């Protein structure tokens, strides 16, 4: 398994690490059993993601995908952010080893979960915007 330089850069110097005390939306996906948990905090102003932070328990790819995903959605409108796919995340990182592709899915889901949470807090049903949230499908998981 060989990580790209981009992955290593985001792993070694993750952008937007941390929490947002007064976040407008918080999403958490994954679980300890699978070896990855991602938690994403967003601040939304006028339908635009003005700030985003994350915390991740997981492998190098998990950290790097969370990091780059936060970069990719920061300053974006919610609709724009929701267009971010795991594929785009992988491409932005110059690729991921096959065994690590699931991390990019997790990053996409963490972002969506945080936006879902934002909509919910606004009293809006997130499903029309975000779609259904899927459960983890890794081998160790019976969630």
């Amino acid at each position, binding site marked *: 398994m060989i990580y790209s330089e981009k992955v290593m850069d985001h792993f*070694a110097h993750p952008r937007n690490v941390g929490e947002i005390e007064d976040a407008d939306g918080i999403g958490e996906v994954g679980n*300890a059993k699978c070896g990855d948990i991602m938690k994403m905090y967003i601040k939304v102003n006028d339908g635009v993601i003005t700030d985003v932070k994350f915390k*991740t328990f997981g*492998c*190098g790819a*998990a950290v790097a995908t969370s990091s780059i995903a936060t970069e990719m959605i920061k300053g974006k409108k919610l609709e724009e952010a929701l267009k971010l796919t795991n594929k785009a995340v992988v491409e932005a990182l110059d690729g991921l080893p096959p065994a690590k592709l699931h991390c990019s899915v997790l990053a996409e889901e963490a972002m969506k979960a945080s936006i879902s949470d934002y909509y919910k807090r606004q009293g809006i049903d997130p499903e029309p915007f975000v779609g259904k949230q899927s459960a983890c499908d890794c081998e*160790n998981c019976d969630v």
Partner: protein
Amino acid sequence: MKKRFVYADNAATTKVSQKALNAALPYFTELYGNPSSIYSLGMNCAKAVLKAREQVADAIGAKANEIYFTSGGSESDNWAIRGCAKLGEKKGKKHIITTAFEHHAVLHTCRYLESLGFEITYLPISNKGIVTARQVEEAIREDTCLVTIMTANNEIGTIQPVAEIGEVCHKHGVLFHTDAVQAVGNIEIDVNKMNIDLLSLSGHKIHAPKGIGALYIRTGIALPNLIYGGAQERNRRAGTENVPSIVALGVAITDAVKDITAKNEKVRKLRDKLIDGILKIPETRLNGDREQRLAGNVNVSIRGIEGESLLLTLDLEGVAASSGSACTSGSLDPSHVLLALGLPHEIAHGSLRLTINEENTEEDIDYILQVLPPIVKRLRSMSPLWERICKTENIHDYTLD
């Protein structure tokens, strides 16, 4: 302290010693003959192979004609286990006893045999990582053809009571194979005193090259081949002999078993300092028995962080370490050894193995102990799992330093 390179993953592989390499070198470009050839160039290679065979035999108390060179520990394990299974099958004996924490070369071979209708008993290990001869004896049945239990575990370094297990096997007329890949050169091995019928060893764990190993087969065991073909290794393992690596293995194993006691004393001191230093970090635990373990093995679980991230960060600081076994890193599964110890997945994911040897120095240990705590702190600070642990268990921030 300035940044340095500390190799602390000697259970994964070791540096080839200059002495072993020097011994091997002529066999690449000068003495490059085929040992099966009759002319001098070939004969000289045959002599070199014979000498190495004697060296390997001497190192484990065997006779030279009980040593068969292979391509490494995995091949040796496959050969021994599948060979004994075939011998057993002929007598209608299709039960094999092993443990839950063997190397994959043993476990996956056993799984394969299951697909052929063999029944495998995977003995549980204690929470200290030890199996007992008593467990083995209780598991032996009329149709047991083989017991295969490792001499020392590759992840947690625990040493098994091999001599007693062998005794029990022989009492019941069952063949006993041991994967001694991690043990050779680290603890004294005598196949006779330890009642071992077959023993796997691998060069690259003891400063010989990768891709060379040996299987000891006690005289009288008509083990069928794993690899058929030419008459090499007295018809039992085909393939032109890997002369340079065989020569290197002979030299390296001779050095490895020399002064084990003195070597271990030095290494154990360093290791103990390392263990004590790491255990000062809150929410860490040592995996595996502290006493009955290889002199150079440290295996700790560090709650709230994930192994790969830890390794990558250590690497950025110049420290080469591992989490679980090297062979399965890159996979998403937590170590089967740590799960066998009874650790929950979450903690198994956050384990760190540091395996040092006689080449490591006190400075190496100090360096690791300097860089590790801030790394753990940083990774925990960005871990939602640690956040949760702190909340639910009320671990306060000040306990982190």
